[in-house]
């Protein structure tokens, strides 16, 4: 597992590449704990958001098992009125949760930047 500093450094790079970057965290799926995070929005409770999103990921994985889908979960996209939230699974135990301002960014950029930096979280 990368150290917290390595995780934060990786988020710094993502923030630099992504216009409208709001917040991001690396989250342990099983426990919902943040392993590292970065936020430019003081009101955004990233620890709570990460914990709740881990429940969503766990439920999705459960659904996939119930449906006997023989594939893997790559990412989950959530479009809010003014924000885009992306959950990208990194290995079997963690995921990156990223929130960006929808007016300044688009989904293609978000996924490209995430893909480019995903290796840093392994």
């Amino acid at each position: 597992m990368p150290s917290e500093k390595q995780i934060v450094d990786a988020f710094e790079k993502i923030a630099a590449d992504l216009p409208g970057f709001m917040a991001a965290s690396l989250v342990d799926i099983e426990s919902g704990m943040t392993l590292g995070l970065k936020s430019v929005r003081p009101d955004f409770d990233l620890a709570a958001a990460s914990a709740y999103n881990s429940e969503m990921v766990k439920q999705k994985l459960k659904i996939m098992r119930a449906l006997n889908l023989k594939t893997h979960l790559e990412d989950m996209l959530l479009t809010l009125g003014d924000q885009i939230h992306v959950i990208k699974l990194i290995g079997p135990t963690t995921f990156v949760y990223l929130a960006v301002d929808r007016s300044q960014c688009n989904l293609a950029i978000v996924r490209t930047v995430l893909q480019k930096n995903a290796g840093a979280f392994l």
Partner: protein
Amino acid sequence: MAVLDPSCNQVVIRIVYDGPPEAGKTTSVRALATSFAGVTSTPEEDATGRTQWFDWMEYVGGRFEGSEIRCQIVTVPGQRALGARRRELLRTADAIVFVGDTSAARWPRTLTYLEELRQLRIDGVGAVGIVFQANKRDLPDAVGVADIRQQLGDARWTIGIVESVAADGTGIREAFVYAVRLALDRARDELAAGRLKTGTPAQVSPAELLAALRAAEAPPAASMEEALAIASPTVATALTSVAANLLGDVLAAEVDREWELEAASAEPEEPVRVALPLPPIPAVPPSKLAPRPPDASVPSGAIWPPVEGRTILLEVATVDLVPRRHTNGDWSAGLGTGWRLVSKRDAVFDSLDTGRNALVQWARLHAACTLIVSPHRCIVLAATGDGRWRLWQIVRAEESLRDLVERASSDAEAADLADSLCQTAHALVEVHARLADAPCDLPLTLDTIGACDASGMYIGLMPEMPVAPPGERRSPSAVVEAELAPLLVDRLRELEGALARRAPGDAQVAALLTNLRR
């Protein structure tokens, strides 16, 4: 004081940056402005660029209870001669970021100013959250973080510490975010208590704040000594204490030193050689090696579950916790408070990263057992006070099945006792079945199982990591027999004794006793 402004549907909070002169307050706010693409405003600076009144910046973003959040970010002037302005600005704070110069030479002065803040808080800004922004961490002679924690802990400060290098912006945003959280927590409390003010804030621009400060100030500007001297009677009483007298001596020394420094600003500074104004240390500390128990300053990512855990931590923080060492080296706290805080002897880590790895592993085990274990519990990685990190588990004390049976047997009729025994046996069997899915061995006894939340739950401590895989399990009937038989045998012995005393030598009673034993 936070204000809810219905005219623009905004909640207005004020974060005040306090600290000694040239500690980096203005630099921090300017770094913040760069980070948030904001603009700072400084009404007046002296020839050397030092703040005379305040620096001002506004940041609007996020929502609080449906309202937009407007943060007024204000610095105080650090010069001692402008102490009255400092006090006036601190009085309006919803949260304070104390920017401390942690270079070895300036560290004593940082502690002095921090202690002054405690005095000033008595006079009006009590219950305001404080973040200690340990600045100038890039200097080669910076005081170690472990020492900083130790000294702040010794001075009974329970405040969060954020390391920073204001000159390059490192740590600035983290400290600000922390302060905003504290301010919003306070606003939330005020809202819940019906005390959150509604209306237009007293000042909405630097010009208005400047006008208010000018109006409040009778020329010439009162110095820090005068500011402390005109404090409330509470402060006057406090100033008679040994610690306060010491503080007074230090302040006097600091005034002279400050004046000398300003007079010879071109010369390099010598360390300020003054005694530290620490408050009296408790007469009998439990142990010099006692780790500091977890408190609300635990950083994000160091607590599980992340949301409920913080609520538990806030609740636990309201009780007086004194860690005590057991003979096996484990630490515990919370006796008699309704909470059990336990940390194993070896659950201490030299770095946050190592501790966090252990925390995550343990959190996974907890998460896998959430349907079996009692809900009011959390695990926390807390700073020990000596630069290391210690893993604690916090569990609310619940009524155990043994408590339940003993209460029933002491004051109930036989039928009630029978009901209680049936209920207990049922709970044991139910938990036994659910424990089959647990990834670890949890002891199934009358003491570790409780009837909280209308069903049987494991209420004991979670085993430490690494956990051995579950071993061979007893059958449900064996569990019930092993746990309840001793209680029934004890009860039977009492009954025998009572019967034998009432009718010694009675043939019928003797026959009854024989049957009972059978």
